[in-house]
């Protein structure tokens, strides 16, 4: 605030000496006017939402096991004759599974052993084997960790199923260096910012993606600080970011896009320039 006041004073003093205009400058400090109209850019933060539910932490698992044991101690008798036909295979399987679960909950030595004769035990085992044979199916559940996680394949959209991953592209900057950033571009005349964001995304990454730009409003902006030099004043460049989701498809990069990556927030920090990161980090999801 003091810097602004001093600048206003200097300005008014200059005006006084040059124009000898008795018009006083405004007492309230004006915001510093940019040298010319700022250049606007539209950028897209394309997010692949989590595919998998978050894994419970060790504490959460321990707590859930503790609560389950309390419920198991307190619950009312299970109406077995309602759910299972008496003497059926399903009932036999349920009873043996239940005995196992009791052992797991209270320890193997807690419950008093039922007097199951060896013949009865063998019969039950045979029943269970028959059921397993009948119910055998090829529907196996897929593992939560995808091969692309181990292979560190940053092009894969199956990686990091539990996390939010974002698209960043690598392009050649003006000084020839390769920089990682979100796809961005300038809106053409009469185009709105969110439309420009969608168009730029297609221009950089092709149309083979089922994307959805969420809203007309930007979710954030990045304004790099202009170095204060005495040369011709450069207009400031403001980039507005728009949130997008990808539901299917893959990036088909254009020639000027050197590389692309689907990365988490922490991985973005290691790739992107420091100033850019500071401007962008608060828009991204931690998990």
């Amino acid at each position, binding site marked *: 605030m003091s810097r602004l006041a001093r600048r206003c004073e200097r300005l008014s003093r200059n005006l006084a000496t040059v124009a000898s205009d008795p018009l006083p400058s405004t007492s309230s400090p004006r915001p510093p006017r940019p040298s010319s109209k700022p250049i606007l850019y539209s950028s897209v933060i394309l997010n692949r939402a989590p595919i998998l539910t978050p894994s419970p932490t060790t504490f959460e698992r321990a707590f859930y096991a503790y609560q389950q044991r*309390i419920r198991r101690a307190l619950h009312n008798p299970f109406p077995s004759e*309602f759910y299972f036909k008496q003497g059926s295979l399903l009932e036999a399987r349920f009873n043996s599974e239940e005995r196992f679960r009791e052992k797991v909950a209270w320890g193997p030595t807690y419950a008093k052993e039922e007097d199951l004769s060896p013949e009865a035990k063998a019969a039950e085992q045979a029943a269970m084997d028959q059921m397993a044979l009948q119910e055998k199916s090829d529907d196996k559940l897929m593992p*939560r960790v995808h091969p692309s996680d181990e292979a560190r394949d940053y092009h894969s959209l199956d990686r990091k*199923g539990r996390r939010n991953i974002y698209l960043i592209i690598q392009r050649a900057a003006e000084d020839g260096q390769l920089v990682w950033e979100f796809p961005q571009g300038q809106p053409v005349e009469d185009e*709105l910012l*969110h439309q420009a964001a969608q168009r730029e995304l297609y221009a950089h990454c092709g149309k*083979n993606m089922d994307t959805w730009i969420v809203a007309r409003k930007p979710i*954030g*902006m990045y304004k790099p600080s202009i170095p204060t030099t005495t040369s011709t004043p450069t207009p400031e460049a403001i980039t507005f970011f728009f949130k997008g989701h990808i539901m299917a*498809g893959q990036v088909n990069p254009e020639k000027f896009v050197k590389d692309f990556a689907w990365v988490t927030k922490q991985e973005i920090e290691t790739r992107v320039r420091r100033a850019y990161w500071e401007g962008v980090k608060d828009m991204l999801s931690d998990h």
Partner: protein
Amino acid sequence: MASSLLAWCRARPVSLTPAAHVRHYAKPADANAGDTRLILIRRALYPGNIRNRASPTGTWRPDVRQTIQRAIPSVQAHHTIERAWLLHRRLVRKRREAELARKFECMKNAMDELKRVDSRLYSEANKVEDPRARSKVEMEKMKQLPALEARAFDARVRGLFPREMRIPAETPSKNGWNYEWKPIERPL
């Protein structure tokens, strides 16, 4: 006279349910009395209403006292676990709220900056679209497409969540991510 009255009061508590209100579904199922499935369903749905036990559906396991002592180490331990859980949930909640606050702050700064820079773009960004409205370009497009494709085209409504956004699941799908998606031309 009084002594006999007292004796009657102190006797085993007699059920106060009148005979007409007693439900007989809770009786053990007789094999040849109609459809056993219906009898079982009635037993599950309508427990006996003669109040001569602690619970109509049956009480806990017979060794509940020892079992509960095995489950809960001590009263203090139970309270500590409870407090630790509440603290954990509080930390998770605070983290989530802080992240949302940061994101909102970013959005607010961006809109303030846009307002400062370009008022036309700002007012356009703030415009609320009617999701039912179809633009002229879209209407023209729909007339040209065949019926099914026109429906698929129409299904994606601006401002609403698309149907293709899936909620997270325990395990990924067998086929994984759909990389071979064919684009539908949509005007911006």
